[in-house]
C-alpha cells in the first residue's frame, strides 16, 4: 500500500513530523514500512523565477539569454529551450543547486546532478531552468508539462518569484510503501492508514465529510437490483449519474493519483480510482443505456458459459463464478472485471455506479480459475467491510458533483439483506496485562481504544468494535491493540519462570552427533540434498522395473518433473554432488549427508509415510572400499556396536559393483549397504572415476547403539601370539575364516588381525594366501603353549573343511 504523506495529512492535518519519524513510528505501531520514496530527492536550491527579458545569443542560433527574477535578485541564464517567453514563471535551479536527472529521460543518477555557474558559448549562465524530467517526474504525472522544454507554471497558479518551486509542484512529499498484513483489510485504504497515523501520533483524525448528494429524481426509477446469490454478495449499492461531462480531473486529484503511480485519465475514471484508494472500495461504472431492462441481477454463472470482458478477452466461466447480469444476460464478472457489452465509452450519457462487496474467498478462487487478477479483485479477495460500500459510493457521487462531471440522481439502490452485526468484546484489562507482562492502567487502555474508534459501554463493560476492524474478535486481539500503542519497546523483558525443565536432546540426536563427528574426522564434509527428485533417478541407479523403491510419493503440484517425487533412496543427492565436484575438478572429495527418505505404506497415500533418516557417505579420489569400511567400523565402535556388525558379501544392489558390495547388519538387523558405485551408474552421473558409497539407516543403528561403557581392566598376564599363513581358493571370503576362528578360538582368543593377502607367482593359479596374527590371553593366568596349540589345531581342522590349508 503506497501512501503519499500529503494525502494522509488531508485527514490528519496536525501530523507534524519528518518522513523518517513517520516511517519509524508507524513501523513500531504495526504498519511495517517497506520503503519511503522522497519525491524531492536531489532537488536543491530550486525556486520559482519570472523571465523578465530574453535576448538572442550572439554566437549561437539555438540559445537565448534570459534575465530571470528569482525573488531578491535577477540572474542571467542561458537556455536552449524554445518554449520560454517573457513573463513566464519557471522552476529555476540556482548556482550550487541540484536536480534529479537529465532532460532525456534516462534513469536518474543516485545523487542527482549538481548545477554550477558556467559559460555557454562564452556567455555566463548562473543556473538552469528545469523541465519536468529534470525535476524527477514525468509528463504522465504532469500532463500540462511540454513534451520538450521548460516546465511553465500555469497563470492560474498562485506563485511568485523566489517561491519554493518544488513545493509549488507538490513535490515536497514522500510516498511511503507499507506492508499490510492480511488481517488489516481496513489499512488497504488511505483513510485506514490515516486513522492508524492519527492513533500513532495522537493527533485528531478527520474523515471526509460525505453528504448524500443528488437531484430530486430517484435512482430506483432508473434501475432495480436483485441479488440471488446472497451468500456471495453481502451488499450491492447502485447510484445513477446522468448528463455526464467527461473532462480532465482537477490538479489536486491528478497529483494524488500521480503520487500513487496511477495515471490520470478523465474525471469519471479518476473519481473511481480516487475513491478506491481513499476508501479501499473498488467501484464499477456501467453505461446505463447498455443495461437491458434497466435491471441488475447478481447470480452465479453456469458451467461452460463464455463471456467477453472489457479487455476483449473471452473468459470461460463455471457455476462458482459470480456474475453481474442485466435482464437478459451477463454484463460483468463480479468483483473481477466488467464486460465489453456494458463498458463506458466516450459518448456516455448516463452511468450506473456500482459499489458492492463480495465473498473474498470466492473472488480469489474465481480469479485464479479464470486466470484474471485485477486491482479490484485484489481488493475484494481480502473480504471487504459491507458498511464501507455505501459511504464510498456516496463519496464518489459527491465528487462527481463537486467536479461538475455530471448530474447525480437522488437516492441509492441498496440491497443489504443481512447487515453485519455489531461486535462486542468484554473489557478485561487484567487479562491483557497478564498476557503481556505489563501494568498498563485502564485509563491508558481507554485512551488507546478511543484513538482506534473502539467504543465502550460502561453498563455492560463491553468494547464496541467498529465494523472496519474485522480482525478484533477476542481478548488476545485487544491485548495486541494495547501492546501496539503502549509500545512493544516499552514491554519489559523477563524470562519465563515456573517449573524448571531439563534441556536435552534425544538419544537419536546424540547418535547423529557421533556419526557427524566420525564422518568429519575421516575427511567427509557435510552436504545438504533435496528431498524431492526426478523419477528418472531410478533408471540412473539401474533399479529394476519392479523394484519396490520405485514406489515413491508423487507431489501433486511439483515445481517440475525434476522435483516431483519424494526420494525413497538416499543415493542420488550425494552422487549428484560428487559429480558436481568431479566436473569442477575438485580432487579427493568426501561428502556425507544425514537426511530423510520417504517410504509410503501404501499408494496413493492414506496415512503419513515412514520417514527414515539415512546417513549417506560418498567419496572418490584416493580411496577404496576398505577405507570407507574402516570409517563405518570406527563409527560402529563409537556407538558401542563393536562386534555386533556384519558385512555380508552381496550382489543384490543394482547400483553397486557386483563384486564389491556388502550388506550391513547391526545386531542381526539389516542396516544398510556399502560398495563401489557401479561403473554404469558412474557413467550415468558423468563421473569417469571410481566412487564408493555407503548408506546407513540411522533408526536401525540408533536402536542398537549404546554409550554405556564398563572398564574391563588392563591385561595383567602375557599374551601368546600365533601367526597363521593360510592358502585357499580365491572365492573364499576372509570374513568366513574370521567367523570360524572366533567360534573355535573361544574365550581365550583376544583378537584376530589380518596382516597379508597375497595372490601371485608364489601361489597356485586360482588360489590366494591370507595371513592372520592371532592373540590369545587369559585375564587370570599365564597360558601354556600346549593349550594354545590345541586351540589352533581345532581352528585349522575346521578351516580344512572349507578347503583352507596351512601354507607350506
Amino acid at each position, binding site marked *: 500500500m503506497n501512501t503519499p504523506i500529503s494525502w494522509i495529512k488531508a485527514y490528519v492535518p496536525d501530523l507534524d513530523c519528518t518522513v523518517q519519524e513517520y516511517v519509524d513510528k508507524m*513501523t*513500531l505501531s504495526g504498519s511495517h514500512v517497506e520503503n519511503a520514496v522522497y519525491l524531492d530527492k536531489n532537488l536543491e536550491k530550486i525556486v520559482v523565477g519570472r523571465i523578465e527579458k530574453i535576448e538572442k545569443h550572439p554566437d549561437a542560433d539555438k540559445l537565448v539569454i534570459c534575465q530571470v527574477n528569482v525573488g531578491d535578485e535577477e540572474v542571467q541564464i542561458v537556455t536552449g529551450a524554445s518554449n520560454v517567453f517573457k513573463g513566464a514563471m519557471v522552476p529555476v535551479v540556482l548556482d550550487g543547486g541540484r536536480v534529479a536527472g537529465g532532460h532525456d529521460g534516462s534513469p536518474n543518477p543516485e545523487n542527482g546532478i549538481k548545477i554550477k555557474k558556467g559559460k555557454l558559448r562564452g556567455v555566463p549562465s548562473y543556473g538552469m531552468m528545469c523541465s519536468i524530467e529534470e525535476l524527477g517526474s514525468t509528463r504522465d504525472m504532469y500532463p500540462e508539462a511540454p513534451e520538450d522544454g521548460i516546465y511553465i507554471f500555469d497563470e492560474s497558479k498562485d506563485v511568485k518569484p523566489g517561491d519554493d518551486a518544488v513545493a509549488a509542484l507538490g513535490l515536497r512529499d514522500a510516498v511511503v510503501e507499507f506492508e499490510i498484513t*492480511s488481517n*488489516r483489510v481496513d489499512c488497504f485504504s488511505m483513510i485506514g492508514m490515516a486513522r492508524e497515523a492519527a492513533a500513532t501520533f495522537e493527533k485528531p483524525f478527520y474523515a471526509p465529510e460525505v453528504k448524500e448528494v443528488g437531484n430530486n429524481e430517484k435512482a430506483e426509477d432508473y434501475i432495480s437490483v436483485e441479488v440471488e446469490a446472497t451468500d456471495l454478495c453481502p451488499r450491492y449499492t447502485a447510484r445513477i449519474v446522468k448528463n455526464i461531462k467527461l473532462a480532465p480531473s482537477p490538479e489536486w486529484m491528478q497529483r494524488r493519483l500521480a503520487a500513487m503511480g496511477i495515471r490520470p485519465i478523465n474525471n469519471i475514471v479518476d473519481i473511481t480510482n480516487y475513491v478506491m484508494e481513499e476508501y479501499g472500495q473498488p467501484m464499477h461504472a456501467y453505461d446505463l443505456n447498455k443495461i437491458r431492462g434497466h435491471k441488475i441481477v447478481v447470480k452465479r454463472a453456469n458451467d461452460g458459459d463464455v463471456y467477453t470482458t472489457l479487455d476483449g478477452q473471452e473468459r470461460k466461466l463455471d457455476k462458482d463464478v459470480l456474475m453481474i447480469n442485466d435482464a437478459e444476460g451477463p454484463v460483468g464478472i463480479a468483483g473481477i472485471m466488467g464486460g465489453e457489452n456494458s463498458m463506458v465509452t466516450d459518448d456516455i450519457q448516463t452511468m450506473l455506479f456500482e459499489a458492492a462487496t463480495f465473498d473474498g*474467498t470466492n473472488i*480469489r*478462487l474465481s480469479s485464479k480459475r479464470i486466470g484474471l487478477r485485477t486491482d479490484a479483485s485484489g481488493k475484494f479477495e481480502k473480504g471487504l467491510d459491507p458498511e464501507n460500500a455505501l459511504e464510498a459510493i456516496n463519496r464518489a457521487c459527491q465528487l462527481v458533483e463537486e467536479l461538475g462531471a455530471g448530474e447525480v440522481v437522488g437516492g441509492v439502490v441498496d440491497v443489504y439483506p443481512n447487515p453485519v452485526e455489531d461486535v462486542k468484546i468484554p473489557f478485561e484489562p487484567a487479562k491483557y496485562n*497478564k*498476557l*503481556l*507482562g*505489563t501494568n498498563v492502567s485502564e485509563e491508558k487502555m481507554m485512551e488507546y481504544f478511543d484513538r482506534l474508534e473502539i467504543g465502550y459501554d460502561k453498563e455492560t463493560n463491553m468494547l464496541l468494535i467498529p465494523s472496519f476492524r474485522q480482525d478484533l474478535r*477476542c481478548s*488476545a486481539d485487544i*491485548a*495486541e491493540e494495547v*501492546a501496539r500503542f503502549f509500545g*512493544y*519497546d516499552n514491554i*519489559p*523483558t*523477563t*524470562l*519465563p519462570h*515456573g*517449573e524448571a*525443565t*531439563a*534441556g*536435552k*536432546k534425544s538419544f537419536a*540426536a546424540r547418535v547423529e552427533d557421533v556419526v557427524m563427528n566420525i564422518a*568429519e574426522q*575421516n*575427511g567427509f564434509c*557435510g*552436504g*545438504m540434498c*533435496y*528431498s*524431492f527428485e526426478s523419477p528418472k533417478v531410478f533408471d540412473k541407479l539401474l533399479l529394476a522395473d519392479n523394484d519396490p523403491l520405485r514406489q515413491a*510419493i508423487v*507431489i*501433486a*503440484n511439483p515445481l517440475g518433473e525434476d*522435483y516431483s517425487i*519424494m526420494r525413497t533412496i538416499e543415493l542420488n543427492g*550425494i552422487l549428484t*554432488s560428487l559429480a*558436481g*565436484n568431479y566436473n*569442477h575438478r*575438485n580432487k579427493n*572429495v568426501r*561428502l*556425507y549427508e544425514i537426511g*530423510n527418505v*520417504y517410504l509410503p505404506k501404501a499408494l496413493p497415500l492414506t496415512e*503419513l509415510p515412514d*520417514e527414515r533418516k539415512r546417513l549417506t557417505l560418498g567419496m572418490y579420489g584416493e580411496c577404496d572400499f576398505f577405507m570407507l569400511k574402516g570409517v563405518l567400523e570406527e563409527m560402529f565402535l563409537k556407538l558401542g556396536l563393536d562386534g555386533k556388525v556384519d558385512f555380508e558379501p552381496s550382489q543384490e544392489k543394482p547400483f553397486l559393483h557386483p563384486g564389491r558390495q556388502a550388506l550391513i547388519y547391526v545386531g542381526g538387523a539389516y542396516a544398510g549397504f556399502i560398495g563401489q558405485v557401479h561403473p554404469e551408474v558412474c557413467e550415468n552421473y558423468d563421473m569417469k572415476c571410481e566412487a564408493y558409497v555407503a548408506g546407513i539407516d540411522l533408526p536401525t543403528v540408533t536402536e542398537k547403539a549404546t554409550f554405556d561403557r564398563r572398564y574391563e581392566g588392563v591385561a595383567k598376564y602375557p599374551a601368546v601370539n600365533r601367526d597363521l599363513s593360510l592358502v585357499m581358493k580365491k572365492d573364499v571370503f576372509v570374513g568366513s575364516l574370521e567367523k570360524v576362528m572366533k567360534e573355535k578360538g573361544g574365550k581365550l582368543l583376544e583378537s584376530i588381525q589380518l596382516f597379508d593377502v597375497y595372490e601371485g607367482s608364489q601361489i597356485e593359479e586360482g588360489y590366494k594366501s591370507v595371513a592372520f596374527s592371532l592373540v590369545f590371553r587369559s585375564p587370570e593366568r599365564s597360558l601354556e603353549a600346549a593349550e594354545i596349540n590345541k586351540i589352533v589345531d581345532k581352528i585349522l581342522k575346521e578351516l580344512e573343511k572349507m578347503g583352507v590349508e596351512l601354507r607350506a
Partner: protein
Amino acid sequence: MKEKIEQIRQQALAAIEDAAGIDKLNDVKVAFLGKKGQLSSLLKGMKDVAPEDRPKVGQMVNEARAGIEAKMEEKRTAIQKKLREEKMKKEVIDVTLPGKKVAVGHRHPNQIALDDLERVFIGMGYEVVEGPEVEYDHYNFELLNIPANHPAKDEQDTFYITKDILLRTQTSPVQARIMETGRMPIRVIAPGRVFRSDEVDATHSPSFHQVEGLVVDKGITFADLKGTLQQWAEEFFGPDTKVKFRPHHFPFTEPSAEVDVSCFKCGGKGCRMCKGSGWIEILGCGMVHPKVLSDCGIDPEVYSGFAFGIGLERVTLLKYEIDDMRLLYENDARFLKQF
C-alpha cells in the same frame, strides 16, 4: 710405594684428558683399572709391603682408583654431550615447512548454525524435538488457525501430495503435535526441513529449514517472549546485540511480532548487509493464539504460551555472508571447506 701410586694416578689422569672418544676412554680404563691394569698390578706387589703399612697402602690405592674413576666419568659425560650436540647440529629442520595434516572434513554451515542455536536453547532448558516432514493438512494449517481456503493454503505456496497430506510449509505443526500430548510445561525447539513452492534462485529454495520454539505454561507473558529472544540473540550474535520487536500478524499467534536484531556486521550504524538500516529482520513470533491452544486441548484460561520461528538458512547466510542460497545445496567441496 706412595710415589708409585701417585705416578700411576697422574699418568691415568693425563691419559683420560687426552682420550678423544668413548673407545679411547675405554682403553684407558682397561690400561689402568682393568684386571691386568696398572693399579691391579700394583696391588700384587702388596706382599712386599710391611703388614702394618698394608691398610694404609690399600687405602691409597682405593683413593687413586676413585679419583681416576671420577675423572673418567666426568670425561665420559663431556664426550657424550659433545657427540649429542654434534648430532643435533646435523638434525636442524626448516620449521616453516607446512605441517602434515590429517584431512578432516567440515560441517555444513547450516548445521553449524543449528548446533549453535540448539546449544543456547538447551542451556535455557529446552528440549529438541522433531516432527514429520510429510504432514497432514490438519496439523500444518487447521490446528494453527489457518482454515480452509485461507490464502496461505494456496497451491502456489504449498506442495500437496493428496487433499489432506502435504509437505509441511513450516515447523509450526510440531507445536500442535507437542501441545496435543497434553504434557505440561512445554519448552521445546523443533528444527527441521520445510517446503514451499518457490523456484530456486539466489534467495529462494523450495526446501529450507526452520527452527520452531514453543513455551507453554501458566503465566507465560509477552515480556517472557521478549526476554527469551533477547537472551538468545545476545548468545547467538554477540553480547552487544539489540533486539527490536515490531507488531505483525500470524494466524496462530496473537499478539504477534517480527523481530529485528541490530546488524552484527556494523553494530547498527548501517551497512550493505542491513541495507543501511542498522537492523536485520530475523524471525517471527508471538503469543500462542487462544484458539490454537484450545483446539490442541489446552485451556487458554489457565495456560498461555509463546512461539517463534527462525529461518535457519537466513541466519546462516547472514552469519557467514553467503550471497547465494544455492551454494548451500550444491555441496561443492571448495565451499564446504570454508567452514
